[in-house]
């Protein structure tokens, strides 16, 4: 049945997505929860936690405060901490119990903003969706608030990277490699949302000619920037040897034409032929599928266990909602490229290539993380 798994893992939740996306921007993030969300996030979902300080907290919600609707405690605690720590902004979001209690986060955010004078965003997490929805809403809220001025574009092509978090790219050097590849492709970076760039870098996002969306959690922000400033976006990750050139061309075309593009989904996975299946985040997995096909000629199919707009998937790609669906798809495949925590449901006669995904297996296989950006794929397929 759906929502049940015997042995595989589960993806990081929306609250972790919020924290991960906003980690480096100088804001304060408060998850309205008893205790578990922060511990899970800081242990399993956040490789920066030990070495890089960030104001990520929980509210330490109690039963009495939840039952009695004591939102004043949350408001007062956030206000007090904000006065001590002077964050650039505040984001508050909730776990399951506030959802059940009907906590009104936008209203609470408005009250905190009025008391502190610091921009405050109330987000709609519940701990019941994946990291992509939380990261998406968090980034969109910040960009919507801070990127309001239409800045002049330079003559030299410029770009933002949108949607990068360690949940999708770990700390394997992949985001640095994307930056280097972008420079090699002739684009100057305005900001990388949200790894390695400051809030002030992001404020200048409107000066970019084009936006590169590297995870589906960046798509809403890219759309916002398109609507607000007319900046086109291109969805894809420059993995493998040949796909980076395709992506670079798509970026140049988009910068020139103003039209958005989805090279990650420009594939056809229909037909009954056996394919390598790649479960994971849609833009990365689609890019990898494209890269495998271009570099090796082996046909692929993306399996999408996460939230994704239809347009991010190619014809023949498959949404999988549970462990059984993953197992069935693996059984009919010529091979699997997936996080090692999918391995127990892969039949022994189907070749399984390990590709750790932090948002699925946390830090378990971080030492095995692969940087696939702009280089030959590591597998003989």
């Amino acid at each position: 049945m759906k929502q049940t798994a015997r042995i595989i893992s589960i993806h990081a939740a929306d609250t972790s997505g919020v924290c991960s996306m906003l980690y480096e921007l100088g804001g304060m993030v408060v998850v309205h929860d008893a205790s578990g969300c922060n511990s899970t996030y800081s242990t399993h979902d956040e490789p920066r936690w030990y070495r890089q300080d960030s104001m990520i907290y929980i509210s330490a919600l109690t039963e009495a405060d939840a039952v009695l609707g004591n939102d004043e405690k949350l408001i007062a605690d956030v206000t007090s901490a904000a006065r001590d720590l002077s964050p650039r902004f505040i984001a508050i979001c909730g776990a399951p119990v506030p959802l059940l209690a009907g906590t009104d986060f936008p209203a609470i955010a408005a009250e905190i903003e009025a008391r502190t004078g610091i921009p405050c965003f109330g987000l709609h997490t519940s701990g019941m969706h994946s990291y992509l929805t939380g990261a998406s809403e968090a980034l969109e809220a910040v960009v919507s608030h801070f990127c309001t001025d239409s800045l002049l574009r330079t003559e030299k092509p410029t770009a933002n990277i949108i949607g990068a978090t360690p949940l999708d790219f770990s700390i394997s050097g992949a985001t640095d490699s994307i930056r280097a590849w972008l420079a090699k492709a002739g684009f100057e970076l305005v900001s990388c949302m949200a790894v390695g760039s400051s809030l002030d870098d992001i404020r200048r996002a409107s000066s970019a000619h084009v936006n590169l969306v590297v995870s589906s959690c960046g798509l809403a922000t890219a759309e916002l920037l398109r609507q607000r400033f007319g900046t086109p976006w291109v969805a894809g990750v420059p993995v493998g040897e040949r796909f980076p050139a395709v992506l670079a061309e798509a970026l140049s075309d988009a910068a020139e034409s103003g039209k958005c593009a989805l090279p990650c989904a420009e594939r056809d996975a229909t037909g009954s032929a056996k394919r390598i299946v790649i479960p994971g985040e849609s833009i990365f997995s689609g890019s990898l599928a494209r890269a495998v096909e271009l570099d090796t000629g082996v046909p692929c199919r993306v399996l999408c266990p996460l939230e994704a707009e239809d347009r991010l998937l190619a014809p023949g790609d498959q949404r999988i909602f549970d462990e059984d669906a993953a197992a069935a798809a693996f059984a009919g495949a010529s091979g699997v490229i997936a996080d090692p925590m999918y391995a127990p449901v892969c039949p022994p006669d189907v070749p399984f290539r390990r590709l750790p995904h932090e948002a699925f297996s946390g830090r378990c296989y971080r030492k095995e993380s692969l940087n696939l950006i702009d280089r030959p794929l590591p597998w003989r397929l």
Partner: protein
Amino acid sequence: MLKRLNGQDDMTGAEIPIRDAAFPAPFVSGLEYNAPARGPWNIVHTGMLIPESHQVFACAQGCLRGVILTAAEMLEMGRMSWISVDRNDLFDGSLERNIVDGTAEIIRKLPKKPRALLLFISCVHLFAGCDFEFMLGELRAMFPDIDFIDCYMNPTMRKSGLTPDQLMRRQLYALFAPCPADPKTVNLIGNDRPTDGTSELAQLVKLAGWELRDITLCRNYEEYMRMAKSTLEITYLPTAKASGDALEKRLGRKHLYLPLSYDFDEIERNLASLADALGIAAPDWSEAKRNALRALDRAKEIVGDTPVEIDYTATPRHIGLAALLAEHGFHVTRVYTDAMIEEERPAFERLRALAPDLLLTATVHAKMRFAGKGVHERGDVLAIGQKAAYFSGTKHFVNIVSGGGMYGFDGIARLADRMVEAATHEQDTETVIQYKGLGCRSCL
């Protein structure tokens, strides 16, 4: 960020000299930070102590993530399954049915049926009025050869009764039903690591000719269930006391709470109580006491005037430990504790008199985010506990949680030896304290 006052970060509200501190809660509650010290066990680690058992967690994705990856890191994914709760489940009346059907499906898919199944529900189930008894009844009818245990991951209720940790330690023994007792058998209840065989507690049990049973030593389900037949229950961790009380009530067996202590008189009283329950005369503990004192002297010689910092994860009696060390001339400068337990009150008063300038420091206060890794430079520190090691930034620390299995005079001597070892050897603090569940296997 934090304002610098007189060259120091402003830690007002996050630390306080013990002379000015209120007992048992020296700090105002507020937003909470989570320090990256992962040694203390959680409910998954504890539940895994039941041999041949399987865990099924029913909760929201965010909550599942932590427990699943706990099991994954300890290389026990084969004993962990899950059922996720989504928004609709809360409102369409399907909570119970989803859990029953999901658990049944999981059991049918397992390569081997578990002897016991620990079914965990979470805060939202309790808020939504989920009927746990009904679910367990259905599952027991479907799988009569499996023992089901109701378990709870409900941190929102942590201040409404037993904490999830206390509840888990109690539910570890929930399967024990009244039965004829095996003579001269005693259970050590609620611990997550074995107690040193050299401790006076273990020695006394041996001396009396009794058998000591402990879940941490059980190799199979039969050995675990044999604990149900023991004559006497002993607990020594505060988080385990409710387990002993529950067993006493349910099984009609005597429960002795002999709290882990660093106070010589209290230790002697505990051992006298145990000797009495075992039906033997209390031995003379003079030599054991002298051994402990000699070990403390040796440690003092090595540690010298190096500041000692202690945190609450190292031992539930962290205030008592600080008092013992201060009494023996150690330069104890800081204790990390967010709140204290009532049984620490006498030690608190003693410590306040002995070392009024000693700082009590919160670990979860929002300002502590910027107080880790030794940023508040204070030279070399000997830490006892992982959080003390993290905040002080030292590489010299005693790596223990929950008392480390050290008990009695022997425990004090061993702890003193561990202090010597810590003072003379460096550890890679960042790596060591990030292993989850100290003593468990790890894939990291």
